[in-house]
């Protein structure tokens, strides 16, 4: 069994796109997953947002309201103040999208698109855009540039501190992408490596493979539960950090 090939087959993205008129239209596992998740979320949420008469329907509405309140009162208002209330829809979308894409990786046959750095980089770019937009909206262009200089900095240190602050903001946003990517990617790799251990032991002797199967599957179950936790945790951390950074730009000093 070729482990490298098997790993890359299960972890990496696959392109089965078509070339039309000299231009390649990429269709990959991850892009299909993202589209599927988006369509499912759109349909489900559009249905849930309608006024419901039945008891179960009202329960769904109450659950959604609870979710929106959790984002507004738990994440947005404590970190961004009253000014952030207009951004609650963005944070609701961000959390639910990341969570749904993370959980899609747990469904057999699907892959978590957040295990692809391009996807998480795009999400981080959206968050970076939100940060810059709010800085410009609340402080204007000059005020936004000034907010990069910490209060109490001597004037002769400004040329040194300003680039450091700008680059450190870029790095903070990049860290968002890398954290989400690394957590989702490493979870899948750990699960697969555990599974491969059964086959590697089985190659030495069939009894070793058979004997190790049960303990490794117990470990696999534990890792799957851990990955379920990480799916929720990383969606929460990404949303929380975006709220913290945006809040820091709105309330500079």
């Amino acid at each position, binding site marked *: 069994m070729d482990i490298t090939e098997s790993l890359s087959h299960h972890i990496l993205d696959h392109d089965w796109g078509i070339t039309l008129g000299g231009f390649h239209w990429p269709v990959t596992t991850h892009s299909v997953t993202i589209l599927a998740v988006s369509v499912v979320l759109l349909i489900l949420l559009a249905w849930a947002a309608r006024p419901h008469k039945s008891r179960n329907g009202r329960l769904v509405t109450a659950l959604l309201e609870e979710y929106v309140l959790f984002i507004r009162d738990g994440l947005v208002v*404590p970190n961004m103040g009253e000014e952030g209330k207009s951004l609650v829809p963005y944070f609701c979308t961000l959390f639910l999208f990341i969570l749904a894409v993370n959980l899609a990786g747990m469904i057999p046959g699907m892959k978590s698109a957040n295990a692809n750095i391009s996807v998480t980089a795009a999400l981080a770019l959206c968050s970076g855009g939100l940060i810059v937009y709010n800085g410009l909206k609340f402080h204007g262009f000059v005020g936004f540039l000034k907010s990069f200089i910490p209060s109490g900095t001597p004037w002769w240190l400004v040329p040194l501190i300003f680039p450091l602050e700008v680059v450190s903001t870029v790095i903070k946003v990049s860290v968002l992408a890398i954290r989400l990517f690394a957590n989702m990617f490493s979870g899948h790799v750990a699960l697969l490596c555990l599974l491969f251990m059964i086959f590697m032991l089985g190659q030495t002797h069939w009894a070793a493979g058979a004997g190790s199967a049960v303990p490794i599957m117990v470990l696999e179950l534990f890792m799957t539960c851990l990955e379920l936790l990480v799916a929720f945790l990383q969606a929460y951390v990404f949303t929380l950090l975006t709220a913290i950074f945006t809040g820091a730009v709105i309330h500079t000093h």
Partner: protein
Amino acid sequence: MPLGSFSKKEHVAITTLGLEFALAELAGGAAGLWLDKKWGTSPWLFLLGVGLGFVLGMYMIIRGAQSLESSQNNAAPKEIKNGHH
């Protein structure tokens, strides 16, 4: 509790510091390597990039610690605040 009375927000801020420090050096090194290849100055710009990345990483950690300390002082009673400064 070893972390004292830090809030949830501050806990998250502490966990990002390590990754930020690592990424600053990696980014500096990558930029140095790229410029080295472009201008054929290997290995000097790579070393300079890693050094600058290290400076940036240290700066980010010190700034992070400062902001944590100031938020702790704001939360603490007044006499402690006066004792610090």
